[in-house]
């Protein structure tokens, strides 16, 4: 057994054991990080492996989140006093799967534009999806609940609910497992499955084809890769990952609002995969953990950190501090990349391999 594998097993064991000790704050932060990790894996397949810049990821995450809430929500709820948004009342598992498929479908629906546009034009046009998506989420209030958002039904599997009830008192080694602890395991499984699927995809024929497209579209086509098909498929798979991230996010928040799926959220995803190293699945997960946990951690320890002010006080707010830190991290990665750290520059299309990498 290799050393790396032992480290992985140890890490997973720690994560499995964590709900025994960690407070609700850490559970919540962890759930956000897991959702972000799934989304970031999807984006790195598109940006890192296929070489297609996309800033629309927040839109597809939103589709997944709202899709889940709509499919799982109670049907005919429009009669209630606050006129809650409508739903289909499907079982949560089916709703989750349908939400992921819906996000994939949205990705495929964008493909007439995606197939025609090249390179940076598609990246810039994709910004439009985020703004149009937010407009729809705020206005289609029959489905989305409008500006105030809507509740997400708790997930359940074979009668076991991932919430604080049903079973009501669920203790593991004397520690009560509520919604957050139960979702923790669901999230862990989903992240592992997502990473495993992405790694397999990259190591097999589709992954090689996508890398070939990134390095040279013409060369890939000459080698017999169906370029439009693979690019469309990469967009779709990436959207489905985003959809799953959205389902996870809806479950972790229990309530979703349109404001969450804004342009800055798309930028966050891009920052995650750049910090982690483009095209690397493990890197995407690491970047997601750093970017989504950093503001929370700074907030948590604001009173003990030197420069950061506690929320509301004067001085550097934790949120801003986090943005400065990861903005600087991206600059650092881009400036220093081709020096030592893992061939990042080479992963960008058209970059020259450094002499070090040539000899390797």
């Amino acid at each position, binding site marked *: 057994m290799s050393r790396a594998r032992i480290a992985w097993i140890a890490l997973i064991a720690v994560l499995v054991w964590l709900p025994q000790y960690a407070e609700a704050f850490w559970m919540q932060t962890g759930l956000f990080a897991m959702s972000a990790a799934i989304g970031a894996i999807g984006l790195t397949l598109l940006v890192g492996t296929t070489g297609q810049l996309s800033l629309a990821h927040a839109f597809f995450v939103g589709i997944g989140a709202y899709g889940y809430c709509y499919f799982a929500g109670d049907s005919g709820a429009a009669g209630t006093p606050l006129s809650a948004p409508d739903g289909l009342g499907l079982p949560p598992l089916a709703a989750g799967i349908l939400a992921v498929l819906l996000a994939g479908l949205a990705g495929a629906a964008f493909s007439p534009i995606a197939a*025609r546009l090249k390179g940076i034009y598609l990246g810039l046009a994709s910004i439009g999806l985020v703004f149009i998506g937010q407009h729809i989420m705020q206005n289609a209030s029959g489905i989305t609940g409008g500006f105030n958002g809507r509740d997400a039904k708790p997930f359940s599997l074979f009668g076991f609910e991932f919430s604080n009830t049903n079973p009501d008192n669920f203790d593991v080694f004397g520690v009560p497992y509520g919604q957050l602890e139960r979702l923790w395991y669901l999230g862990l499984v989903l992240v592992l499955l997502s990473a495993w699927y992405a790694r397999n995809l990259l190591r097999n024929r589709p992954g090689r084809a996508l890398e070939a497209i990134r390095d040279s579209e013409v060369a890939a086509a000459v080698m017999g890769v169906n370029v439009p098909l693979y690019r469309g498929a990469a967009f779709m798979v990436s959207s489905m990952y985003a959809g799953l991230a959205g389902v996870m996010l809806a479950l972790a928040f229990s309530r979703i609002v349109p404001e969450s799926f804004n342009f800055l959220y798309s930028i966050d995803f891009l920052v995650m995969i*750049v910090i982690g190293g483009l095209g690397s699945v493990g890197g995407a997960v690491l970047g997601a953990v750093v970017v989504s946990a950093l503001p929370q951690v700074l907030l948590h320890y604001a009173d003990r950190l030197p420069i950061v002010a506690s929320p509301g006080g004067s001085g550097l707010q934790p949120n801003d501090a986090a943005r400065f830190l*990861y903005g600087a991290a991206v*600059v650092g990665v881009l400036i220093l990349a*081709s020096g030592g750290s893992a061939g990042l520059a080479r992963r960008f299309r058209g970059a020259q391999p450094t002499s070090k990498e040539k000899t390797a």
Partner: protein
Amino acid sequence: MTQFLQLAISGLMLGCIYGLIAMGFVIVFKATNVVNFAHASIVMLGAFLVAKWHGSLGFFGAIGAAAVACALAAVALEIAFLRPLRKRVRSVDALAIMTIALNILLGTELVRAVGNDLLPSGAPWGADTTNVFGAAIPQARIAAAVVALVLMGIFYVIFTRSNWGVAMRAAASEPEAAALMGIRLGRVAGGSWAVAGALAAIGGAFFVSFPAGGVSNVTGLLALSAIPVAVLGGLDSTAGAIVAGLIIGVAQQLAAGYQDELSFLGRGLSNVIPYVVLFVVLLWRPTGLFGTRELTRV
């Protein structure tokens, strides 16, 4: 009909400002191959400085000072961050991601500086209107359009007549040949960033002056609409940026003016209309209205 005319004229004038801001974006892309997301922050920086300085320098004095400051800031960004990266990596995406990171840093600091206030830009017009062809047009818009048109005219002459303009166009179309002919690419790149910075500051000052009346913490986000404008016109066409600015200005004004008739499309339609127009046009012309088609050489 009067309402339509009023909206159309007002839209054209708003479009001039969009065109001015997008022109800077296009100049930078042409000269240095950088899709500059930080342009949005520089627009906000310009507007912010005008709001800060108009008390002591007057509105136009503040615009001049802000234009110089933003030009210097843009050159500093180019030399410190983009130039070292461009030497190593030729990919447009990597450079774009760098400017996104710079936009995060600069934008966060500006939002912090502005806070939750609306800082008045000190434009001397307020809400006064003047009759143009029987339509009441805000004077702020007229002034903005006049300034934008004059600047566009000046830059048209500079691009086509001056040595610097010819050098820039040569560097954009064939960098290696231009360098061999003795054109200093670094200087051309710096110059284009300076011009873009100055245009952003001037455009920003007028952009926030009406109807908002000043800089707020969403100015940077609103200034992102320069990106759909630039893409719509074609990323490497300065004339395209101006035409696209006019189109989007008019579309946005019409969507805002007829929002009651268009209410079935939801509230706040005018904020997303630039992107709707963009998608429709991109389906028809994938490189924008006047963009050069990318040719692939094997």
